[in-house]
C-alpha cells in the first residue's frame, strides 16, 4: 500500500502541469454540467403544478373582482359553482377537475412568498376560488374554455400553458445547450486524463514490464494510476461543487430570489443533488479512461 501511494504521489508531481490541466478542465466542465443539472431542476420546479398538472384555471368571482359574469361585491354562489363544476365534468375533453378554495390558494401563496414582506399586506380574502382542470389532451383546450367562459360566477379563464410555453421552451434550450457544451468539455477532460495516464505509464514502462514479469497483479499495477487520476478528478469535482455552491448563494439566493418572487427557486437540496451528480460523473470520467489507457501495459 505504501508503494502504491508513493507511486501515485510521484506520478502526480512528475506530471504537475498535466495534472493541473486535468484539474482545470474537470473543474470547468463539471461546473457546467452541474449548472445544467441545476437548470433542469429549476425548470421542473418552475413548471411544478402550474404546468404539468394543470392546463386550465377557471377563476371564480369574489367580492372585489371585476368581470362581466360577476355580480359586484359578491362571491360566486354555491349554485353557480355547482353549475360550473357540472359543466366541466360533463365535458368529454376534461380528465379531472380540482377545486382550490381561497384558503388553499392562500396557503400556497404563503409558501412561495415565505420570506417576502409582501405577505404582511395580504390575506386569504384577497385570493380567488378557482377550478383547476386537467385535460385529456392538453392541446384541446378551446372547447373547455368557451364552455365555461360565459357562465355566471366565472371571472376569468386562464390557460397557463399559453403564457408559459415560450418561457419554458427557452429554458429548455438553455438547459440542453449547457448540458451539451459540458458533455463536449467532459469528453475533452476524459481524453486528457487518458493522455496523461498513457504518458505516465510510458515513462514507467520498464518498471511495469518487470512488475508483470515477477507476477504483480494487474490490480496492483493499475492502482497508482487509478489513484492519480482519481485525485485529479476529485479535486476538479470539489472545485466544481464549490462553484455550484457559489452560484446558489450569490446568484440565486442573493439576487434571483429577491427580484423574481413569483417563481419557486431551487434550494440547497437541489444543489446537493447536482453535486452528487458532478462527483459521480467525475469519478467515472477518471476511472474509465485510466483503465483503457493502462490496458496496453497490463496485457499478459
Amino acid at each position, binding site marked *: 500500500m505504501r508503494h502504491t501511494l508513493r507511486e501515485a504521489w510521484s506520478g502526480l508531481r512528475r506530471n504537475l502541469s498535466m495534472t493541473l490541466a486535468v484539474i482545470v478542465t474537470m473543474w470547468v466542465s463539471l461546473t457546467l454540467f452541474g449548472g445544467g443539472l441545476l437548470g433542469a431542476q429549476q425548470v421542473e420546479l418552475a413548471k411544478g403544478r402550474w404546468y404539468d398538472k394543470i392546463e386550465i384555471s377557471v377563476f371564480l368571482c369574489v367580492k372585489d373582482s371585476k368581470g362581466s359574469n360577476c355580480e359586484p361585491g359578491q362571491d360566486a354562489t354555491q349554485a353557480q359553482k355547482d353549475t360550473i363544476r357540472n359543466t366541466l365534468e360533463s365535458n368529454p375533453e376534461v380528465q379531472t377537475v380540482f377545486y382550490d378554495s381561497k384558503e388553499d390558494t392562500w396557503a400556497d401563496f404563503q409558501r412561495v412568498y415565505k420570506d417576502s414582506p409582501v405577505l404582511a399586506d395580504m390575506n386569504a380574502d384577497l385570493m380567488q376560488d378557482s377550478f383547476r382542470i386537467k385535460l385529456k389532451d392538453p392541446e384541446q383546450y378551446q372547447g373547455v374554455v368557451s364552455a365555461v367562459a360565459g357562465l355566471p360566477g366565472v371571472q376569468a379563464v386562464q390557460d397557463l400553458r399559453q403564457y408559459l410555453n415560450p418561457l419554458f421552451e427557452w429554458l429548455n434550450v438553455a438547459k440542453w445547450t449547457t448540458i451539451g457544451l459540458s458533455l463536449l468539455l467532459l469528453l475533452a477532460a476524459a481524453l486528457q486524463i487518458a493522455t496523461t495516464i498513457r504518458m505516465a505509464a510510458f515513462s514507467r514502462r520498464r518498471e511495469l514490464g518487470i*512488475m508483470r514479469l*515477477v*507476477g504483480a497483479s494487474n490490480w496492483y499495477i493499475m492502482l497508482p494510476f487509478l489513484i492519480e487520476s482519481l485525485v485529479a478528478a476529485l479535486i476538479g469535482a470539489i472545485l466544481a461543487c464549490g462553484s455550484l455552491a457559489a452560484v446558489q448563494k450569490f446568484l440565486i439566493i442573493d439576487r434571483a430570489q429577491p427580484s423574481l418572487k413569483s417563481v419557486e427557486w431551487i434550494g440547497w437540496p437541489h444543489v446537493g443533488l447536482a453535486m452528487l451528480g458532478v462527483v459521480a460523473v467525475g469519478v467515472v470520467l477518471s476511472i474509465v479512461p485510466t483503465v483503457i489507457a493502462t490496458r496496453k501495459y497490463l496485457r499478459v
Partner: protein
Amino acid sequence: MITFEDVTKIYDGQRRAALSDVNVTIDKGEFVFLVGSSGSGKSTFIRLVLREYRVTKGRIFIAGKDLSRLHSWNVPSLRRKIGVVFQDFRLLPGKTVAENVAFALQVIGKPQSQIKRLVPETLELVGLAGKENRPTEELSGGEQQRVAIARAFVNRPAILLADEPTGNLDPTTSIGIMKLLDQINRTGTTVVMATHDSAIVDQMRKRVIELVDGELVRDQSKGVYGYQ
C-alpha cells in the same frame, strides 16, 4: 515440471511457425540448455513458458497446470513460480542493488519483514554482499547480471528461465554466472537456459535441446553445443 505437447506457435501476421510440433519434458531439478541460432525459437520457447503468448496449437503444462486453460488473471500467480533473467539485465535505473531485488517482492505484496530477511540472504548467495547500497549503474556487467539473478531468485521460484544470460558478458565473467546458475540448480530449482555460447555448453555437459527453425532436432543428455 515443464511439458510441451505438440506445441506450435505462429505469431499474428506471420506464416512461418516460430515453434512447430515441439514435444519435450523437463523434470524438476533439471538443468537444460536450449541451443540454436538466432530466430530458431529459443526466446519463443521461454515466452510461452511465461505465458506471454498463448500457443497456436498443442498444450504446455507447468507444474501440472495446463497453460492454455489458465485464465489471464491467474498469469501473475504462475509468474511468481518462475524467475527470469535476460541478456540485457533489465534492472531499474536509479535504484540500488537491494532496492532492485526488493522491488520484485514488494510488487507481489510480500510483507516488509520477509523482504528484510530474503534480500540480504539472496544477495549473499549471488556474491553481492556488501554492495547492497550501490546504484546498479555503477556495477560491472557481470555484477548487474548477478543482481538480475538475485531478483529472479529472491522469491525462490521452482523454475529459473535464462534467455542468453551471458550474451553481453566476457568469457571469464560468463563462467562466474554459470557457476551461480549451477549453484541455484543444486537447490532443486529447474533451470532452462537459452544460449548460443558453445564454449559454455560444451563445458557444462548438461542436457541440450536444439532448435532449428522452430523444430526440435536434438535432445541429448550431457550434450555439447554442436556435433562438429
